[in-house]
C-alpha cells in the first residue's frame, strides 16, 4: 500500500502544485518528522536550492498539507509532517462543493472554491476573486451578496480564521464574525469595475481565512449516512437522521453530553419546518435505532437516543466491504456473511447450512481465502492422554473484519491510482480535439463577424466551419468529454470509500496512536 500511496500522491500533487512541491511532499511522506536540515540534505537529491525548498514547504503549509510540530528532543527545532488526509480532500473537493451547492447555493460554493484554490486568503481577496469567477461564468453577484455568503459560511464553520483562538478558549465555540468596512467594500467594487486582476493592499490583508476541511469531511460522512438511510428506509428517515446528526455534532462541539431525547429532535424538526411531520419523528427514531443508525439509550417508548461515530463508520465500512466481496458473486457474498456470522467455522458446517453444492462451497471458500477476505486456520485437536496422537484436524475459517477492511482499502487505493493514470492518458489523447474545439469557437466568432459584413457569403463561411470541425470530430469530442466525466466520477467514489475505510480503521485500531504533541500554528 505504501508504494501505491506514494505514486498516487505524486500524481495528485504534481497535477495541482507542480513537480517540485510533489517531490518535497513525498520526501516528507518517506521521512515523517523531518526537520529543515534533513530536508536540505535531501534537497540535493531533489535538485532544489534551500530557497526553492522553503517555497515548496510554504506552498504545502498554505494549503494545509503540512503539519509543523516541536521536536521532542529539542523544542526549539521544528519538525514537519505531511497531512495525507488533506491530499485525499483535494480529490474529494468537487464532492464538498456539490454538498454545499445543495445545502446553501452556488455562490457559497464559489466562495469556498476560491478560498480552497488559494489555501489561505483574506476575506476581501476571496470575495474579489469569487465575483471575478462568477463574471466569467456570466453570473452576477454584488459585493454585499458575496459578503453575506462568506459570513454564513463562517457561522456554519465551513470557513475558519487562520489565527488561533486564545489558549484559554481552546475548544470553545466563540467566533468573531467576519466583517468588512464600507470603504473596503467600495474598493473591491472599484477594482471589479476596472477589471483588475489583483486587489490593492487592504486593511484586512493580515487576517487570513481558510477552509475547514474537518467540518466538510464530517458533513460528507453525515451525507453518506443519510444516503444509506434513504436507500434502506426512505427519504423522511434520512431527513430525521440528518437532523439528529446535526444536533449531536453541535452538542459535541460544545462538549456536552451526546444523548438526545425524542422531543429535542421533534422541536428541531418543527423549527426547521421539515417535510416530516413531527409526530412521525418518534417512529422514525425507533426505526433508525432498530436498523443501527442510532442507538437507544434507555428502554422507554419515547426514549433517549445517541449516535456512536464508530458504529456508523462500521456500518458504512461493512457495506463497502460487502460490495467488494459481491464482485466475486452472490454466492461468495453469502458464504462470506455466513462465515462472519458463525465465527470460527468448518466446511462441514457450511455444507449443512448453505444451499450450495459442496464443490461450489469448496471453490468459493478457496477463492475468498486467496483474495484475503477469509482467514484459514488449521486446528489440531490433541489427545490429552497422548500428546503425539492427533486425531482430528479440521480446517476452520474466520472473517477478521478489520483485516478485510484493510485489504479492501489497499485495493481501493490501487483502483484510484489506476483510474488517475487512465484519466491522464485520456486527457493527453483528447488534448488535440479540445484544442481544435477551442479554435472552432474562435472561428465561429470570426465567421459571425464575416457574415455580418457580407451576408451573401454566409453559405461558404458556414461550409468552412463544417469542414473544419466534422461530425467525426464532434463525436470524438463528446466521447472524450463523457470519458472524462466518467473517470472523474469514479475517482470521487473511490476517494469516498477510502475516506470511510481510513476513518473506520483509525477508530477501531488500537495500535494507531497519533503522536500527541502540540501542533504549532504559525
Amino acid at each position, binding site marked *: 500500500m505504501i508504494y501505491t500511496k506514494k505514486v498516487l500522491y505524486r500524481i495528485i500533487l504534481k497535477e495541482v502544485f507542480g513537480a517540485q512541491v510533489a517531490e518535497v511532499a513525498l520526501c516528507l511522506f518517506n521521512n515523517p518528522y523531518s526537520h529543515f536540515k534533513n530536508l536540505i540534505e535531501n534537497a540535493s537529491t531533489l535538485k532544489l536550492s534551500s530557497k526553492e525548498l522553503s517555497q515548496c514547504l510554504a506552498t504545502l503549509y498554505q494549503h494545509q498539507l503540512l503539519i509543523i510540530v516541536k521536536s521532542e528532543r529539542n523544542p526549539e527545532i521544528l519538525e514537519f509532517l505531511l497531512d495525507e488526509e488533506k491530499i485525499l480532500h483535494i480529490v474529494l473537493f468537487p464532492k464538498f462543493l456539490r454538498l454545499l451547492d445543495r445545502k446553501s447555493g452556488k455562490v457559497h460554493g464559489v466562495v469556498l472554491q476560491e478560498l480552497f484554490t488559494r489555501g489561505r486568503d483574506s476575506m476581501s481577496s476571496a470575495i474579489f476573486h469569487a465575483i471575478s469567477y462568477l463574471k466569467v461564468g456570466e453570473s452576477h453577484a454584488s459585493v454585499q451578496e458575496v459578503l453575506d455568503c462568506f459570513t454564513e459560511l463562517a457561522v456554519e464553520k465551513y470557513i475558519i480564521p487562520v489565527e488561533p483562538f486564545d489558549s484559554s478558549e481552546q475548544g470553545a465555540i466563540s467566533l468573531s464574525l467576519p466583517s468588512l468596512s464600507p470603504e473596503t467594500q467600495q474598493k473591491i467594487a472599484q477594482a471589479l469595475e476596472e477589471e483588475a486582476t489583483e486587489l490593492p493592499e487592504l486593511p484586512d490583508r493580515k487576517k487570513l481565512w481558510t477552509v475547514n476541511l474537518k467540518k466538510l469531511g464530517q458533513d460528507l460522512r453525515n451525507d453518506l449516512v443519510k444516503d444509506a438511510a434513504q436507500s434502506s428506509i426512505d427519504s423522511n428517515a434520512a431527513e430525521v437522521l440528518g437532523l439528529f446528526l446535526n444536533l449531536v455534532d453541535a452538542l459535541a462541539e460544545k462538549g456536552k453530553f451526546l444523548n438526545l431525547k425524542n422531543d429535542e429532535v421533534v422541536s428541531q424538526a418543527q423549527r426547521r419546518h421539515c417535510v416530516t411531520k413531527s409526530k412521525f419523528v418518534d417512529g422514525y427514531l425507533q426505526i433508525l435505532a432498530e436498523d443501527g443508525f442510532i442507538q437507544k439509550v434507555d428502554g422507554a417508548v419515547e426514549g433517549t437516543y445517541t449516535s456512536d461515530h464508530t458504529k456508523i463508520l462500521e456500518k458504512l465500512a461493512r457495506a463497502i466491504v460487502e460490495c467488494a466481496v459481491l464482485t466475486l458473486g452472490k454466492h461468495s457474498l453469502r458464504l462470506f456473511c455466513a462465515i462472519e456470522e458463525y465465527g470460527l467455522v468448518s466446511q462441514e458446517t457450511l455444507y449443512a447450512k448453505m444451499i450450495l453444492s459442496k464443490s461450489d462451497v469448496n471453490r468459493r471458500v478457496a477463492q475468498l481465502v486467496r483474495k484475503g477476505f477469509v482467514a484459514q486456520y488449521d486446528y489440531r485437536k490433541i489427545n490429552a492422554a497422548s500428546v503425539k496422537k492427533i486425531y482430528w484436524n479440521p480446517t476452520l475459517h474466520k472473517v477478521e473484519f478489520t483485516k478485510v477492511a484493510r485489504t479492501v482499502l489497499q485495493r481501493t487505493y*490501487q483502483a484510484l491510482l489506476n483510474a488517475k493514470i487512465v484519466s491522464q492518458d485520456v486527457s493527453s489523447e483528447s488534448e488535440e480535439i479540445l484544442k481544435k474545439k477551442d479554435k472552432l469557437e474562435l472561428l465561429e466568432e470570426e465567421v459571425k463577424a464575416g457574415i455580418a459584413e457580407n451576408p451573401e457569403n454566409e453559405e461558404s463561411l458556414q461550409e468552412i466551419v463544417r469542414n473544419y470541425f466534422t461530425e467525426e470530430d464532434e463525436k470524438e469530442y463528446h466521447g472524450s468529454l463523457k470519458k472524462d466525466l466518467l473517470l472523474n466520477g469514479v475517482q470521487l467514489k473511490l476517494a469516498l470509500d477510502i475516506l470511510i475505510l481510513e476513518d473506520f480503521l483509525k477508530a477501531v485500531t488500537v495500535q494507531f496512536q497519533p503522536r500527541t504533541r502540540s501542533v504549532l500554528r504559525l
Partner: protein
Amino acid sequence: MTSSSFVVKKEKLDPSELDKILLDFCKAHPEGVSGPLLKSSHPDLDLKQCTIRLQKLVSEGKLAIFKKGATNLFKYKELSAAQKNVKFENEIEKAIYDVIADSGKIGIWIKDLRESIGVAQQQCITALKSLKAKELVKEVFPGTGHKRMWMLYDIEPDQQYIADKGGPWVNESTGEFEPDVGEKLMNLTLAYLKKQFNRPSDNSGLFAERKRHYLTPAEIHKFLEEKKIIDAKTTVEHVETVCDNLVFERSVVKKVSSNGPVYRFAKAMMESSGFSSVPCGFCPLTEECRVDAVVSPQSCEYYSKWKETAETADMLVEPLKSVRPLV
C-alpha cells in the same frame, strides 16, 4: 394277520406337490415353521423328504431360514415380479440380495453387507452394480453426514430411520445437490417477503407498520405449501434455512423475537461502492498490476472496453482548477 403288524407305506409325494404343501403351510404360519410343528400338522408326510425339499426351497429363495433359540424356523418369502424372474450371475449376488432383502425398510450399509457375507470390497461392488442394473436393489441417501444404505428396489425407506436428508434441494436417491430447486425456493420466498413489504399502509403508525413486514418461517412455509411449491417433506426448519441464506445475501433482515426468528425484506443500503464500479474490482490480475509493468492500467483491455461502454457517473461540479501557489 393283525392290524398292528401292518406298516402303512408312506408314498413319496411328487416334489412339486410337496413344495406346494410346504409353501402353503409356511404362508399360513408367518411367524415361522419348525420341524415338530410340521410333523404334528402333517403326520403323513415323510420328514426326510420334507427336509430335503425345504432346503431346496431355501436355496431357490422362496423360503428363508432363521434361528429362534435352538430351533431352526422356515419363513415364507414374498417375491416381486422382477424377483421371480431374476437370474443371479453367481452365488455372491444371490447372497447379497438376500441380506439386503432381510434389511427391509432400514437398508444396510455396504461395509456391514460385506462383513455379513464375507466377501472382498471389489466383489461386493461388482455384485451391487449388477443388481442395481437389474433394478433389484437401490442406494438411498438418508441425509448429510449419514451413510448411504442399500435396500430392495420396491421398498420405500422408513422415515423414522432416515435422518434429515438436507432439504428439498438434495436429491433423495442420489444425494446430489439440485441448484435449481434451491434457487427457486429462495426466489419465491424473497418475492413473498417483498410483497409483504410493499403492502399498502394501514395508518397504524410507522413502527407498527414495520412490525407487519416481519414474517415467521411458519407463515412462509404455509404460503409455499398453499402454492404447492413445496411437498410434505419440506419442514419449517428447511424454510428457516432458506431465509437464513437470504439474510446472508443481505436481501432479508432477521430479528430474533420472543417467538423465534422473524424475517423482513430489506432494501440495499449501498448499490455499489467505488471499487465495484471500476474494472479493477472484477480484474483477476489486480495484484500484478503496476504502472509501466506488463500488467498495467495503461495497457488494460478491461479499462479500454469499460471507457467506451460504461454509463456516465453522477454529474459533478467541474474538477479543481490548477493552483497558483502564494509565495
